[in-house]
């Protein structure tokens, strides 16, 4: 392995880290408040699509990113309404959102751009990068992601707001008795979780991959959930876990064209790693006590 390969893998791993970390940080916040969602896969896909449309229409990738956040917020409000206010099941709406996005995006690519399967974004709709030295560069989204993870961790564990969010996930009865509006905290935590996934999805189309593809989320929504479990619902550790997954992603991209092993086995790697990690080689993870359970006031 030469220096070029090392730089390639390092750079790609940072880019691949972003969607996983953003989504698992959002999911961790939401689950700390007690709301489980498995719809992030669909949110990533849908926001990649709509983010690309917003970016192309306006010629600003940043508008695309905001559009992605908006898509995430809308899905988060839908999921929050169903689970928090109507006390419904937490898993089924996620299945629905994933299926909806898996249909909507290929449909939308045909209906909007008139091509089947995928669409390449023009350069004008892609995010600018920060120049480093002579020919190095870094996406501002890498830095933003690290900042979001740090700030989310700080708010969640070091401020009264975070304490309240965690209390509605650990012991909603006690929180309720202290006058905390359990439903309000749960609802907005769900929205925040999905909003970050929306940002992550738009990043994939307007920055990292520069295109929309009908299967571009590629299981990252679920890998992010695995990373959340791995990191013990802690945004700070999510950064490390997310980078590890990014590293395997990058390694697979680098190894696949070399034909040392059948490429299908290389592509399996991140998913096998996820299984091993959630199986608890690091130690059994402990979710918040009221995670995924609807809370009804007596």
């Amino acid at each position, binding site marked *: 392995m030469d220096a070029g390969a090392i730089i390639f893998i390092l750079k790609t791993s940072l880019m691949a880290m972003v969607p996983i970390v953003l989504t698992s940080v959002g999911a961790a916040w939401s689950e700390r408040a007690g709301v489980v969602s498995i719809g992030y896969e669909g949110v990533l896909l849908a926001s990649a699509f709509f983010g690309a449309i917003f970016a192309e229409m306006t010629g600003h990738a940043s508008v695309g990113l905001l559009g992605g956040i908006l898509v995430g917020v809308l899905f988060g409000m839908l999921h929050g309404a*169903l689970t928090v206010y*109507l006390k*419904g099941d937490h898993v089924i*709406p996620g299945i629905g*959102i994933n299926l*909806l996005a898996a249909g909507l995006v290929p*449909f939308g690519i045909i209906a909007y751009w008139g091509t089947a399967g995928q669409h390449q974004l023009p350069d004008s709709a892609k995010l600018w990068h920060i120049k480093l030295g002579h020919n190095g560069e870094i996406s501002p989204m890498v830095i933003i992601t690290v900042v979001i993870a740090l700030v989310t961790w700080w708010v969640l564990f070091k401020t009264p707001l975070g304490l309240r969010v965690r209390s509605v996930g650990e012991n909603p009865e006690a929180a309720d008795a202290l006058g905390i509006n359990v439903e309000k905290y749960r609802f907005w935590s769900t929205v925040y979780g999905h909003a970050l996934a929306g940002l992550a999805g738009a990043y994939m189309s307007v920055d990292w991959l520069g295109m929309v593809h009908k299967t571009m989320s590629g299981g990252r929504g679920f890998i992010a*959930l695995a990373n959340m479990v791995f990191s013990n619902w802690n945004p700070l550790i999510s950064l490390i876990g997310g980078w590890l997954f990014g590293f395997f992603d990058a390694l697979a991209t680098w190894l696949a064209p070399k034909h040392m092993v059948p490429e299908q086995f290389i592509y399996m790697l991140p998913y*096998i790693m996820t299984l091993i990690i959630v*199986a608890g080689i690091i130690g059994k993870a402990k979710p918040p006590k009221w995670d995924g359970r609807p809370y009804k006031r007596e």
Partner: protein
Amino acid sequence: MKSSEKPGVSDVLSKINVKAFVESLIAIAIGFAIGAVILVAFGYDPVKAYSALFRGGLESTDNIAATLHYSTPILLTALTFAVGARTGIFNIGAESSFYFGAIAAIAFTNIWGNLWFGLLMGMILGALWALPAALLKVYRGVHEVISTIMLNWIGWYLMLYLIVGPYANPMNPIKTIKVPDSARLPLIGDTILSWGFFIAVLAAVVTYFILWHTTLGFGMRASGYNQRAARYGGINPKMAIIWSFVIGGMASGLGGAMKIMSEFPGYAISQGGANIYGFGFDGIGVSLVGRNHPLGIILSAIFFGMLKAGTSSMQQTGVPLEIVKVIQGIIIITVAIPGLYDLLKKSVKRGAA
């Protein structure tokens, strides 16, 4: 309910909850309504699209045969999700068990060209692929949603490797080797429908029988309803969970095997796994609309089969077939609204007052 009771027809009918049935119809209606809004938003004519869709699934004997043909695999993958749901498990793994049922059909019928052997091996491979998720759940507490989705991806790449590697057809590079003549499911008349449909219906009836009329099924449902109470009642929830994955894997494996053994004129897996992809995910929708009840699933599978049969005629009107998946997604989200029936009744009353 005691497991020794003999079921009468009226018992069976009373168990198909009318309220649940109406709720499923409401969910379907909402799915189509929002689908229509999306069609209009992108400049299509929903009336034209939907009428082509329904005509394509119902207009002639051939179309009805096509409807039943398309309902067969999703009926079986729906059973996978339903058995899981009854045990309190979200088993999303039907998709990859289906792949390995298909692989088994190719691999084993080429060793011994016998129909029943092929179906049996499909069921066994399907169950084996489901087992890791069951063991991870029971012994490591890994949430089945994550493990089954990961197994789906791993299975997908393993299947891709197998179809371009060991089972590639040297005469036709875009397909695997074929199921030999002696192991193919016979077709009914000149239609594309095979006897596999009736095997699938039989599987649903057997699943119903296991769940509601055996001790094993009672234990499974009891542990799905309340694990602590089940354990108190002398039921081992671990075994119930493992059985739910095994039975579910068998259903999907059977579906995958039958898909390949009955598919005129292919009888092979096509390039990139195109003809065996997506049935597991469709099965989730079928199961939820059928209220996770094996008998409800027969009806809901025929409904979704009709949508599939109709998509090609809808596509001829220029509407991309993916809109059907959008409608399915919306139906599932709607199904997730608890007490949909009561909610609607309340708002109708409020509107009338």
